[in-house]
C-alpha cells in the first residue's frame, strides 16, 4: 500500500471508531438536536414576532438556515470536547505509539463529524418543515446548499480539533468552544437582519463566515434573505462562503496537524 492509501485506511478506522460511539452515547446527539430545537422555538415563537424582516417574508423561513449553520458551528465544540477527552484518557498516546498514519487521528475525527452532522441536519430540516420552513429553489440549488453546509461542518471540525488539542481538560474545551463559537454565530445574520445591528457590529456581522453561509443557503433554498443595499458580502454570499471554507481549512487544518505532531505532555 502506498502511504496515502494507508493514511486513508487508518483514517477510516478512526472514523469508524468515532461513529461507533454515537449510538452508544445517544445523549450527545439528543442534546445537540434539542438545543437547536430550543433555538427554533425561542426565535420562531418568542423573539420572532418582534423581528421584522426588511422587505417582508416569513421569519421562520428566514430563521431555519440560520439554525442549521448555527448547529453545525456549535458541533465543533463537541469535536473539541471529544478530542480533549481522548487526550485525557490516554487514547491519543496510544494512537501516537502505533505505527499508523499521523494524519489519521484527525482526519478520521473530522470526517466522522461530517457524517454525524449530516444526520443531525436531516433531523433539523424535518423539524424545520414542521414549523413552516419550505424550500423554494431548484433541486440543484438544494444539493449545492447541502454540500456547502457539509463542507462548512468539515472546516469547523478542524477548528474544534485544534481547540481540543490546545486545552487541558474537557471543561476547558467546552468553555473555550463557547467563547469562540457563541459570538461567531450571534454576531451574524443567523437570527436578525444585519441592518438592525449597531454600526460597530454591522461590518463584523456582514463579513462573518456564518453570515456568508447563512445568506448563501437562504438564497439557495429560496428563503427570504434581506441584506443592506450595496452590500458586497450580501450579494456574493455563495463565492464568499466557499472562500471562507477554503480559508478556514487552509489555516486551521495545518495548525491542528502541527499541534498534534508536537503534543508532548
Amino acid at each position, binding site marked *: *500500500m502506498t502511504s496515502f492509501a*494507508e493514511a486513508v*485506511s*487508518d483514517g477510516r*478506522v478512526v472514523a*469508524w*471508531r468515532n461513529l*461507533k*460511539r454515537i449510538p*452508544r*452515547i445517544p445523549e450527545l446527539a439528543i442534546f445537540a438536536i434539542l438545543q437547536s430545537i430550543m433555538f427554533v422555538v425561542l426565535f420562531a415563537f418568542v423573539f420572532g414576532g418582534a423581528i421584522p424582516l426588511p422587505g417582508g417574508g416569513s421569519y421562520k423561513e428566514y430563521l431555519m438556515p440560520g439554525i442549521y449553520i448555527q448547529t453545525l458551528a456549535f458541533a465543533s465544540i463537541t469535536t473539541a470536547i471529544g478530542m480533549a477527552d481522548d487526550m*485525557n*484518557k*490516554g*487514547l491519543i*498516546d*496510544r*494512537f*501516537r*505509539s*502505533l*505505527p*499508523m498514519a499521523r494524519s*489519521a487521528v484527525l482526519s478520521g475525527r473530522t470526517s466522522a463529524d461530517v457524517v454525524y452532522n449530516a444526520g443531525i441536519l436531516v433531523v433539523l430540516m424535518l423539524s424545520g418543515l414542521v414549523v413552516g420552513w419550505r424550500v423554494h429553489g431548484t433541486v440543484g440549488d438544494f444539493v449545492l446548499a447541502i454540500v456547502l453546509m457539509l463542507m462548512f461542518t468539515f472546516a469547523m471540525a478542524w477548528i474544534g480539533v485544534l481547540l481540543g488539542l490546545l486545552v487541558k481538560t474537557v471543561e476547558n474545551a467546552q468553555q473555550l468552544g463557547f467563547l469562540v463559537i457563541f459570538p461567531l454565530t450571534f454576531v451574524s445574520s443567523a437570527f436578525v437582519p444585519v441592518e438592525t445591528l449597531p454600526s460597530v457590529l454591522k461590518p463584523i456581522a456582514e463579513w462573518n463566515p456564518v453570515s456568508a453561509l447563512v445568506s448563501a443557503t437562504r438564497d439557495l433554498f429560496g428563503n427570504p434573505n434581506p441584506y443592506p443595499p450595496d452590500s458586497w458580502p450580501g450579494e456574493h454570499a455563495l463565492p464568499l462562503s466557499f472562500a471562507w471554507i477554503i480559508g478556514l481549512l487552509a489555516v486551521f487544518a495545518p495548525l491542528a496537524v502541527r499541534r498534534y505532531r508536537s503534543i*508532548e*505532555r
Partner: protein
Amino acid sequence: MATFADVAAIETEGLVKVYRSGGDEVRALDGVDLEVQEGTVLGLLGPNGAGKTTTVRILATLLRADAGRATVAGLDVVRDAQAVRRVIGLSGQYAAVDENLTGRENLWMFGRLYRLSSADARRRADELLGQFALEDAADRVAKTYSGGMRRRLDLAGALVGRPRLLVLDEPTTGLDPRGRLGMWDVIRDQVREGTTLLLTTQYLEEADALADDIAVVDHGRIIARGTSDQLKAQVGGERIEVVVRDPGDLRHAVATLAPNGDGTCDRHTRRVTVAARGGAQELVEVVRRLGEARIEVDDVGLRRPTLDDVFLTLTGHVAENGSAGENDEEDEDEPDEELAA
C-alpha cells in the same frame, strides 16, 4: 558485523529531559544510560517523579529527549520513530482503551491500525480475549469493565502487533490486590513466551516479583542496577534476628552468637541481630548455641533485606512519593489523579 542477536532491545545514552514552566526548570531526566538485552525483563524502580514515565515516553516515541540518544531494537527513536512503533507495544498508567467500544472492537481497531487485515485483526482479537480471560466481557463496552479488566484489555491492546519489546508503565498502579496479582500472572505469561519487557513500578515487591534485572531511578538518574539479589547484597546480605524472652539475657545472647563483636542488640524490642554469612545452615547453628546457653527465645529468623532497605541505603530516603522539589511539572507518575479519573 552486527547480527540481529547483538542488537540490544533497548539502549539509551545520556538521556536528558528538562521541563520548563515559568521560570522553573525541572530536570526530569539527568543522563539516563540503559541497556536491556532481548528476552529479559528490566524493572525501572523509583518513586513518583523519579523519571520513569519520562524514560518510557521517550522510548515509545511520545516524547523527545533534550539530549542523548535512544534506540529500540537498533532503531533510533527519533529518526526511525515509525519503525520503532512497529516493534513496541505500550501500555501506560492510564487504561488507554476506547471506553465506548467493546473489548473486541478495541482490539480489532488496534489490529487494523497495526495494518492487519480485517479478518486477521478479528482473529488476533479473539486470541487475546481468550488469553486475557476477557471472553465473557468481549462484547460489552469497556466503560462497564472493572479496573483490572481494563488494564488487561489495555495490555492486550499493547500485544496486538506481537511487539518485540513490551513497555508497561506502572501496570498495576491503582489496582486492588486481587487485580494486581491477576496482572502479574498475565505479565509472567508474556515473559515466559520470551517477550522483552521494560516495566516501571513504584512497588518494590513488583520489581522483585517480575523483573530479572532492576534499575533504581531517582532524580532522573539510574542510581543502581543489578539483579534483585545483587541489590540486596549491597545492603549487607542476610541477617539472623533473635528475640529473647528475658531482657536480662540480651548481653549473654550477643556474646554467645557474636563473639567477634559484630552483633547488635536493641533493648526495647529484645532483639539481637547478627550477620548470617552461612545462610540457613547458620540459623541451625544459632538455634543450637542458644539451646546450649539455655537462653529462652520468642522468635528466631533469617531476614533477607528487602528492596525497601536497598532504596533507603542508596538514596537516603524511603521509596515514597514526591521527594521535595520534583514531580510537579508533568502528569507523570500520579496515581491519585489516576484513581480520580
